[in-house]
């Protein structure tokens, strides 16, 4: 009883609610659809959403710092495009391309951070312009998609890391989990991470406490840009192509995942781990719909909306009950 009350009072309560709700969703799917309850379905959630998870980790930092980054989807697409072009047209070695793409993402993000901080502009508008810019640059490289057949990418794409009983995980999923772990560690165990929280809690106070506000802000956007380009690489492993239309609306998915995971959009409150539960919830909803297989296009949208509502409403009501207790 006492332990229960302590769990209720813990600040991570909302995150646990998400986990429980997710388990419930999964159980419902397993009861209803054949083949749903296999381990591979769970692992596919990770494999198929690895790129989203990486972006959401970066986005968590941005949102925790009280900002927002709308450019991630486009930066991801730009990365696939640049990587594909360098590999296929310029014939650069894959390792160089990977390093360059990551550096490019970090630079893009840092630049946005510098503009936001240096000119005291709102992150929303700066990253929105960044979103147009990155997407536009994709089309400048090529409007068509470019297929990637570099051996390193091919093998990363098709390697299956076997787990128990025929189930497997992709290298991309493993990388994403590693990024998540690194994100957790950074957010909760380093001075940088705590400064990010402080910024989101109250930027003026953070400044008056003498915390490195400017540096942290720029670093946060650089981190998000880096995550977006890493996600782009994972996406390139996953799709083996570079294309300007990749990742449409991924920024919204990532923001939704982070917020569903319990992070407050205005900053300062939440956990990086919430990114995982948020991504899994979104993935689970999609899997449920794919398994159902009777929904038309519009019913798909409505069911996604409905499940999202259910999830958020229940999570919220439980949180309110807790606050009242």
């Amino acid at each position, binding site marked *: 009883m006492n332990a229960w009350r302590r769990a209720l009072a813990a600040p991570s309560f909302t995150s646990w609610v998400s986990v429980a709700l997710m388990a419930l969703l999964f159980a419902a799917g397993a009861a209803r659809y054949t083949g749903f309850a296999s381990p591979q379905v769970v692992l596919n959630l990770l494999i198929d959403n690895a790129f989203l998870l990486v972006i959401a980790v970066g986005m968590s930092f941005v949102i925790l710092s009280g900002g927002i980054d709308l450019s991630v989807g486009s930066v991801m697409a730009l990365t696939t495009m640049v990587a594909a072009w360098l590999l296929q047209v310029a014939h650069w070695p894959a390792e160089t391309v990977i390093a360059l793409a990551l550096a490019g993402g970090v630079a893009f993000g840092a630049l946005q951070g510098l503009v936001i901080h240096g000119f005291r502009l709102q992150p929303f508008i700066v990253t929105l312009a960044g979103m147009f810019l990155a997407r536009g640059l994709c089309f400048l490289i090529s409007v068509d998609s470019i297929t990637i057949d570099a051996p390193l990418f091919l093998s990363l794409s098709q390697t299956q890391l076997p787990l128990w009983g025929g189930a497997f995980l992709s290298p991309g999923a493993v990388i994403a989990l590693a990024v998540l772990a690194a994100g957790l560690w950074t957010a909760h165990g*380093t*001075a940088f991470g*705590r400064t990010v*929280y402080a910024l989101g809690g109250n930027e003026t*106070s*953070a*400044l008056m*406490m*003498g915390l490195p506000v400017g540096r942290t802000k720029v670093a946060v956007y650089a981190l998000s840009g880096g995550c977006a380009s890493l996600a782009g690489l994972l996406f390139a492993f996953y799709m083996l192509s570079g294309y300007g239309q990749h990742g449409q609306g991924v920024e919204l998915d990532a923001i939704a995942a982070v917020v569903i995971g319990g992070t407050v959009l205005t900053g*300062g409150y939440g956990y990086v781990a919430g990114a995982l539960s948020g991504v899994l919830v979104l993935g689970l909803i999609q899997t449920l719909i794919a398994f159902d297989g009777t929904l038309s296009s519009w019913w798909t949208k409505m069911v996604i909306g409905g499940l999202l509502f259910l999830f958020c409403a229940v999570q919220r009501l439980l949180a309110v009950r807790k606050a009242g207790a």
Partner: protein
Amino acid sequence: MSPAPVLEVTNLHKSFPGVKALSNAHLRLYPGEIHALMGQNGAGKSTLIKVLTGLYTPDAGHLTLDGRAIAPTRTEDAQALGIRTVYQEVNLCPNLSVAENICAGRFPRKPLLQGRRIDWAAVHAEARRVLGQMDLAIDVTAPLSHYSLSVQQMVAIARALRLSARVLILDEPTSSLDDAAVQRLFTVLRRLREQGLAILFVTHFLDQTYALADRITVMRNGETEGEYLASELSRLALVNKMVGAPPDQEPSRLQSRAAPSGEPVLTATGLARRGALQPLDLTVRRGEVLGLAGLLGSGRTEAARLLFGADAADAGSITAAGRTRRWRSPREAIAAGIAFCSEDRKHEGALLDLSVRDNILLALQARAGLRRVLSREQQQALAEDYIRRLGIKTASADTPIGQLSGGNQQKALLARWLATQPAVLILDEPTRGIDVRAKEDLMDQVRTLAHRQDSQGMALLFISSELPEVLHCSDRVLVMRDRRAAGTYARGELDERSVLEVIAAQSSASSASSATSPA
């Protein structure tokens, strides 16, 4: 006292649009001294401090530290130079834990991974150690927002005390502390003085100034009026120098007065909220001032919030305006003629980006609903009337309230509630951060509001950590201890000493235990 000042400020100028906040300000800080910076609200004390610490860039002037010119442009710079500051408003992050707020910026690290990893155990131990210096034993892992403003203020001080420094600056650190806490802080400050630190201290409490300071710099209208040794400046002279003219009259002394016999306008029975307040019975009558006395965390603020509907009560009921019920929102309380001036003006009072006029008008307008009750001219007139009556120092009624000095913001918020002409006015630490003169004016106001001759007087609930203030103003005093009433005493039944005895009865043990569980 060594001959050379650590920190010297000469000829400092700083203006904001329409306001000259500092013109020709001077200051000298010597190592091993406690230096009081005195001045009326809006005299420029906080601005001076913000310039010193790199938050504002001065228009002109020189700063030297140890004889070398400095020009801090960021607080980080000032910290690196060994200047530690506690600003006037609590400037900490409410979402971080107490320990983090204390250690942020210089966390104890683990040697792992090139020392990047924060050593949380050390962080918590360190936070407990610093708070322990001030006898505050709270759960340092709880978020700062769980604690009342006074605790937050202590945390802010603890943060500044944590690392050794050359100069320590405290801008009204005691504004929401009770006596005991103030004494503990003073002990710490005296010890630091012994260690050779230069301490700059801003307060509006003359007692504290004389108890602590070696030297006093007086500011008036953005200028340095002069620098004096505390031992050579009488209180009256100090006040005169701050105000700029001899006081035209002695502050009104108390006339004794028959206990008011107005009808009860606000009655609470068994009002309680889990974890915040034990069942409380309380009655305020028309024309009387009921004082709430108690120590930090004794539950005065909680009681006020429940009476106003700011928090929902779990049990009990409130009778006001002829009906008995429990509030569901402050709106209902306001409709029943209750007003509440919160102690936390930054987060619960002022709307920093709104003009002074709109801040004053807000409650009145909210009660009226969407319909504009006053024309633009009437609004302006009303606001200007209160600005004059309460002596709010502002460029105009259109100035955003965030640009006012702390004490003037407080006055504007008082005006907000006076404008609604409430039947019951709850004032939680209304004297926080306002200067000597204004404080006396305010207490006079409070008493006149209640004791109007036409029997239309308000009922007031007056909360203050300054015991003398409470005793001075109140017709009856309710003493609170450990979140419950410890007794009600009529005026004259109590003096300062006996109240302290009531408060202290068993609280030394229990305050420490209540401390560990955040609300």
